[in-house]
C-alpha cells in the first residue's frame, strides 16, 4: 500500500496548509474592507442620514477643480521634503559621530533617542509650539533684542511645520543610519587611508559615497511618513492656515455639518495612490541601499576615526543635539505642568510652581480611564499583532506556498495614512457595525490592522535568523508542524517576539490620528485626550498628563531598546 504524501509538503504544490488558509482569511477580513469602504464612499453621494446614495464622481471632480488643490499638493511636497532634509542632516551627523568616531559622550545620543521614542507626538509638538510661540521664550528674547515691532518667529507656518516634523523624525533617522554606519566595513576606509586620503577625502569618496543609497532611502522614508502625518499639520499648520492633504481630510470631516465623508474619502483615495507609488519607489531604493552592506572581518574592531583636537567641538555638538531635540521640549512641558496656568518663563512665576496639575490629572477618573484604555489598547494590539506576525512571518520567511500572498496582504496597510485608515474604519463601523463604534475594541481592530506590517518585519527577521535545519532536524525526529513550531521556532523566536511586542505597543499607544475619528466617551485614550486638551487650551493638564504618560512610556521604550540591542534586532 502506497504511503500518501502530505500535499502541502511536496515541492510545487499549490495547496495551502490550514495555517496559511486561516491566516489569509484573517488578513483579508482585516485589510480588504477598509479599501472597499473607502473607495465606495468616495464614489457615492451621502444622504443626510449618512447612508449611501447614488454613484457619483462629484467628489473627485470637486477636488481636482478646487483652486486650493495645487497649493495643497505643493504644500504637502514642500513640507515633506523639508522635514526629510532636516531629519536627514541631524540624523546623519549624530549617526556618524556616534558610530564612527571617538567623540566623547556618544552614549547620550542613544539615551536621548530612547527617551524620544516614549514621548507622545502631541506632547512633543505642543512643547515646541510653547517654546517657539508668540509668547514663548525665543520670541521674548528676540523682542527684547530687536524691539517689540521687530520680526519674530511664527511657528504656525509651513516653516514651523518643517522644523517640528524634522525634529520629530531625527531620532528615527539617527537610529536607522547608525545601524548603516555600524555595519559598514571599515576596510574600505582604511584602504582609502593607505592610499593617502585624509579624513575629508575619505568621508567624501568612501564613507558617504557608499552610504548614499541608504541616505536616499531614509530621506524617502521620512518624506513618506511626513506626507501621511497628521499631528503636525493639525496642530502647527491649521492655526496658521497652512494646509496639506491630511489636514484637509480632517477639515472636510469636522468643519462641514454634516461631515463631507465623500470628499474626505476621495482625498483618502488620492493619498492612498500617492503612498502606493512612493512606497514602491522606496522598496526599490532600499534594496539598492543595502547592497554594500558587509560583515566586518574576523575579530577586527570597526575602525573609529580619531578626531584629535576636534573631539571637544564634537562633544559639544553631541551635547547640543539632544539638548535641542529632547531637553528643551521636555523642560518646556515640565514648566507648563508645574504652573497652575501657563505663563511664559520668568523668574516671577517660580513661586507659583506646584504639583496641582499632576494631582488633578492623577485623581481624575476620566484621565485614569484614558491611561488604562491606552495601556489596554497597546497591550491588546501588540499581542494580536505579534501572534499573527509570528505565524505570518514564519510562512513568509520559509516561503511556503501562499507566502507571497500573505506578504502582500500583510504589507498592504502601509499604504494607508493613519487618518485615512481611521476614516475607512469609521465608515465600516457606522455602516456595518454600529455596536462596535466608539468602543475600545474598535480601536484595537484598527491598530492591529495598521501595525501588522511592522510586526511582520520583526517576525520575518527573527525567523530568518533561525537556520531551517533546526526545524528539519525536528521534522526528521518525528515532530509534526505544530510541535515543531511551538517547541523549536517559538523559543528561538522569543527575542524577535519580545522586540515586536514592545515596538508595536509603543506605536499603538502613540497613535492619535488613526483613532481620533473613532474614540467614544468610553474609549478615550491618552493620545486623543492630549489633542483635545490642547484644542481646549488646557495647557497645564495637558503637560501634566503628558509628563506622567511619558514617564510610563519611557520605561517601555528603554526596555525595548535593551532587548533590541541585546538580540541585534532592528530598532524601527
Amino acid at each position: 500500500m502506497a504511503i500518501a504524501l502530505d500535499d502541502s509538503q511536496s515541492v510545487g504544490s499549490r495547496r495551502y496548509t490550514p495555517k496559511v488558509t486561516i491566516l489569509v482569511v484573517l488578513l483579508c477580513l482585516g485589510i480588504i474592507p477598509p479599501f472597499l469602504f473607502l473607495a465606495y464612499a468616495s464614489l457615492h453621494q451621502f444622504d443626510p442620514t449618512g447612508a449611501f446614495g447614488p454613484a457619483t464622481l462629484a467628489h473627485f471632480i470637486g477636488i481636482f477643480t478646487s483652486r486650493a488643490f495645487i497649493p495643497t499638493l505643493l504644500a504637502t511636497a514642500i513640507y515633506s521634503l523639508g522635514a526629510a532634509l532636516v531629519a536627514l542632516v541631524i540624523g546623519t551627523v549624530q549617526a556618524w559621530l556616534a558610530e564612527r568616531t571617538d567623540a566623547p559622550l556618544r552614549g547620550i545620543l542613544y539615551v536621548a533617542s530612547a527617551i524620544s521614542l516614549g514621548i507622545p507626538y502631541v506632547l512633543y509638538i505642543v512643547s515646541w509650539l510653547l517654546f517657539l510661540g508668540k509668547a514663548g521664550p525665543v520670541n521674548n528674547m528676540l523682542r527684547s533684542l530687536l524691539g517689540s515691532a521687530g520680526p519674530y518667529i511664527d511657528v504656525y507656518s509651513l516653516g514651523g511645520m518643517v522644523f517640528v516634523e524634522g525634529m520629530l523624525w531625527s531620532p528615527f533617522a539617527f537610529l536607522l543610519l547608525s545601524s548603516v554606519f555600524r555595519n559598514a566595513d571599515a576596510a574600505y576606509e582604511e584602504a582609502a587611508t593607505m592610499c593617502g586620503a585624509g579624513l575629508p577625502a575619505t568621508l567624501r569618496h568612501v564613507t558617504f559615497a557608499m552610504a548614499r543609497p541608504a541616505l536616499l532611502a531614509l530621506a524617502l522614508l521620512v518624506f513618506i511618513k511626513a506626507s501621511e502625518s497628521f499631528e503636525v499639520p493639525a496642530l502647527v499648520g491649521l492655526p496658521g492656515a497652512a494646509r496639506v492633504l491630511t489636514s484637509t481630510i480632517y477639515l472636510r470631516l469636522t468643519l462641514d455639518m454634516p461631515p463631507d465623508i465623500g470628499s474626505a474619502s476621495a482625498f483618502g483615495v488620492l493619498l492612498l495612490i500617492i503612498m502606493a507609488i512612493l512606497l514602491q519607489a522606496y522598496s526599490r531604493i532600499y534594496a539598492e541601499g543595502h547592497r554594500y552592506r558587509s560583515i566586518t572581518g574576523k575579530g577586527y574592531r570597526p575602525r573609529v576615526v580619531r578626531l584629535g583636537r576636534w573631539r571637544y567641538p564634537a562633544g559639544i555638538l553631541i551635547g547640543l543635539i539632544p539638548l535641542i531635540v529632547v531637553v528643551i521640549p521636555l523642560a518646556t512641558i515640565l514648566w507648563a505642568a508645574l504652573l497652575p496656568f501657563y505663563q511664559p518663563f520668568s523668574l516671577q512665576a517660580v513661586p507659583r510652581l506646584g504639583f496641582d496639575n499632576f494631582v488633578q490629572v492623577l485623581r481624575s477618573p476620566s484621565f485614569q480611564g484614558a491611561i488604562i484604555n491606552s495601556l489596554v489598547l497597546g497591550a491588546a494590539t501588540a499581542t494580536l499583532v505579534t501572534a499573527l506576525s509570528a505565524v505570518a512571518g514564519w510562512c513568509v520567511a520559509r516561503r511556503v506556498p501562499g507566502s507571497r500572498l500573505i506578504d502582500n496582504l500583510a504589507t498592504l496597510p502601509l499604504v494607508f495614512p493613519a487618518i485615512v485608515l481611521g476614516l475607512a474604519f469609521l465608515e465600516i463601523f457606522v455602516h456595518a457595525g454600529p455596536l462596535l463604534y466608539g468602543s475600545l475594541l474598535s480601536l484595537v481592530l484598527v491598530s492591529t490592522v495598521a501595525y501588522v506590517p511592522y510586526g511582520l518585519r520583526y517576525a520575518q527577521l527573527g525567523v530568518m535568523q533561525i537556520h531551517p535545519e533546526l526545524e528539519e532536524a525536528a521534522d526528521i525526529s518525528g515532530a509534526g508542524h505544530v510541535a515543531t513550531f511551538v517547541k523549536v521556532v517559538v523559543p528561538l523566536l522569543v527575542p524577535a517576539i519580545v522586540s515586536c511586542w514592545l515596538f508595536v505597543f509603543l506605536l499603538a499607544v502613540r497613535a492619535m490620528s488613526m483613532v481620533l475619528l473613532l474614540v467614544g466617551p468610553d474609549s478615550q485614550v491618552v493620545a486623543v485626550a492630549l489633542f483635545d486638551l490642547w484644542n481646549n487650551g488646557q495647557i497645564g493638564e495637558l503637560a501634566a498628563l503628558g509628563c506622567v504618560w511619558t514617564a510610563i512610556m519611557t520605561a517601555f521604550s528603554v526596555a525595548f531598546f535593551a532587548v533590541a540591542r541585546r538580540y541585534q534586532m532592528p530598532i524601527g
Partner: protein
Amino acid sequence: MLRVENLTKIYFLSDLSSGGGIRHVDFNVGAGEFYTLLGPSGCGKTTTLRAVAGLEEPASGRVTIAGRAVFDSKTKEFVPANRRNIGMVFQSYAVWPHMTVFENAAFPLRMSRTRRWREVEIGERVARTLDIMGLAAFASRSAAQLSGGQQQRLALARALVAEPRLLLLDEPLSNLDALLREQMRLELRRLQKDVGIAAVYVTHDQSEALALSDRIAVMRDGAIVQIGTPRQIYYQPANEFVATFIGRSNLLRGHFTQGVAPQARAPMQTPLGPLLCECPSGAVAGEPVAALIRPEHVVLTAVGRASDPAAPNRFRGRIAHVAFLGETTECLVQVGDGVEIVVYSAAGEYTLSDRVDVFFPPERTLALASGEKSRVQNSSKGNQS
C-alpha cells in the same frame, strides 16, 4: 628598508585582563625582500602589520621606513597612515564597489601629496599598472562586477600604482579557492621580484610562507619565536612549536642524561630507547626535550634488508595504516611501545601489518626545547637600511 624595534601593543578586555597583542617585536626587512609574518590566529601578526601601516598606534617601540622614523614612542613621533607612502592589500581586498576599476587604481595618485598628477599622467600610469595586472580590459567596468581573483589583482594594482617603498599584504590569498590560490602565489612572487619592492606578508598558511618568502618570522602569542629563511625554519626549527607548526613532524619526548654542547650529537633517552640526535643549541641534563624527525626523512626498509643492522637509531616497526596521497604514500608505523611514527615513503609499497625496519638518520634527528625559550636566528641577509 623597514626596521621594527621593540614594538609593544596590548589589548585589554573589559575586565582589564590581557586580550592579546604584541610584545617586544623586533625585525628588519631589507630592500626588495619578501618577508613573511607567520603564525596561528591571534599570534599578533596582523597587529604588527597594522602597526607598521599606521592603522594601530603601539604603546612603545620604533618603526623606521627607508631611514625615516614613522613611529617612535620615545620622541612621540607618529606619522599618520595616509602619509607613510605604503601600499597595502587587505584581506577582503576593500575594492570600492561604487567606483570603476580605473578609479580604484587611480585613487592613490589623486590623493598624492608629494606630487600633483595631471589627468593625462594618471591615465598613463593607471593603464600601465592595470596592464601588468591583466586588468586593462576592465578599466571602465564597475569594480563590484569583478571576480575574487580580479578584485585581488585590482587591490594589488592600487597598492603599487604610486610606487611606494613598502608593500604590506594581509592574508590576501585566504579568500581564494585552492587552485586560484596556487596561481596567485606564483604571480605574486614574480610581481614582487619584478617590481623589486620590499614586502611584508602576513599569513597562517605555512606552505604559502615557505613558497613565497625570502625570510620568515614565526610568531606566537604576541612574540617572534624564530626568524630565518624557509629552509632554516623547516630544517632547523628553534623549538617544538615551530617544528609542529611548519610541515608535519614526529616528536619523541625524552631527556639527556648528560649535558650536551651546542652543535654536538648525543643519545637522548626516549620511550623507544636511546636515540642519537643533533643538538643545535645544546641541552642540560634531565631537561625535558623532544626529538624531531620529519616524515620524509624516516627511512623504511623491509625487515632484514637494512644495510647496517647494528647502526644506531634503528627500530622494528609494524605498519598500522597506509594512505596513498598521490605524490607520496603516508604510512603510520607502530614502533616500540605504543609510539606511532608518520612516514612519507615515495618508493616502496607497504600494506597493513607489514613488518618494517625504521631508521632515523641522526643528522636529520633534531633535539628541540619544548617551547618557552625562543631562539632567534640571525641570518646574513637583511641588515639595517
